[in-house]
């Protein structure tokens, strides 16, 4: 498996945010996108996820096991954005079971809700309304989503936001396991995120 981006240019509101950016990642590699605020880190991730159109260039992910040959890039990627996509009216379990059914309708869940939440140290809160969780707990619920359905490309936008040091260790552990299983990670961050083996891509000039 291989993720290759060639000559990517992306516009936001008539302004070119990403200009002719290229990179290639092999299975088991991570790309850490850094850069100052407004450099286009989130824009790049959203474009790879298929949520934004490309002004020029192409992104290509070689066919991956367990998916149709013509499966699009967006249905093979896990997008973890700034918002945690947890409904306050539903419990943690209901939220996660919904996303597992919707994002992994072709495959059986890789982990049950209980397993994923135990991993993230949230099993106590499984039947609590997601509206009552703290920001860090909600973030961990969003991370549990990545464990429940298997998708080869993880697009993580500031994944460490609101996480405490234990949860951060757990995130790094999950990332390591995903890479060891032949997955690919593209993470946007402005604080150091030690995911190995990782390449770096700096957007927006500067040192």
């Amino acid at each position, binding site marked *: 498996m291989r993720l290759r981006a060639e000559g990517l240019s992306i516009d936001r509101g008539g302004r070119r945010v990403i200009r002719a950016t290229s990179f290639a990642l092999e299975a088991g590699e991570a790309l850490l996108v850094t850069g100052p605020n407004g450099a286009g880190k989130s824009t790049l991730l959203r474009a790879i996820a298929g949520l934004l159109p490309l002004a020029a260039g192409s992104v290509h992910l070689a066919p991956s096991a367990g998916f149709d040959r013509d499966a699009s890039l967006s249905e093979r990627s896990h997008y973890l954005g700034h918002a945690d996509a947890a409904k306050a009216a539903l419990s943690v379990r209901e939220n996660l079971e*919904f996303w597992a059914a*919707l994002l992994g309708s072709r495959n059986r869940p890789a982990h049950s809700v209980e397993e994923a939440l135990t991993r993230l140290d949230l099993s106590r809160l499984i039947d609590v309304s997601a509206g009552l969780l703290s920001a860090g707990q909600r973030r961990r619920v969003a991370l549990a989503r990545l464990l429940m359905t298997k998708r080869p490309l993880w697009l993580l936008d500031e994944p460490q936001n609101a996480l405490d040091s234990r949860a951060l260790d757990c995130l790094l552990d999950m990332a390591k396991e995903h890479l060891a299983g032949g997955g690919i990670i593209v993470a946007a961050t402005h604080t150091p995120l030690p995911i190995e083996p990782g390449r770096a891509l700096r957007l927006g000039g500067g040192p």
Partner: protein
Amino acid sequence: MRSALAALFVREVKIAGRIGGGATVGLVFFLILVTIVPFGIGPERQLLARIGPSILWIAALLATLLGLDRLFQADDEDGSLDLLMTSEVPLEILVAVKCCAHWIMTGLPLVLASPFFGALLAIEPPGLAGVGLSLLIGTPALTFLGAIGAALLVSLRRGGLLMAVLILPFTIPVLIFGVATASDLSGPEGPGFQPLMVLAALTLIAAVTGTFAAAAALRVLLR
């Protein structure tokens, strides 16, 4: 794919049914509109019975649009819409499922309550059946038309009133044939079915165009 659609349907129904979901608010709003009219025009039974079906239809129209602006906005705010787009299920089908769930939770209660509320307006039993049937066939069209407005205003905060302004003109044909269906079904020369056919056609057209137009609008606007 079927399990994904079932999961989306169950989620929508649960959210609408819980506190703040808005399933019951539409029904109460419907009741208030229907009870307010006799205060405005006076308690003359014959007049009320004559304009009763129209009042029920206008009330149903407003009650359906109430809260429909949140159909996609709530999912946009918490990031759910981004994730829905990375599902392998096409967005058009997801939109259709969301509309169906919304109609079951807001439109269907109006249909079921309309005979009771119609009795408040002194409509005779045959007329009540006609109004109920016309609402059953016609209100899905209102939901699907409203979905277009909800999608167009997805990123606009407090777009509820703007949505009503945008969508109400397009609901006029549904309103005309809905009221005509209700009166023709209980007409003095036996039931007439022509307006009913047109109303059913309008609902089918709205279901198709609403689904595709709303999905297209979401794709463009979420960039």
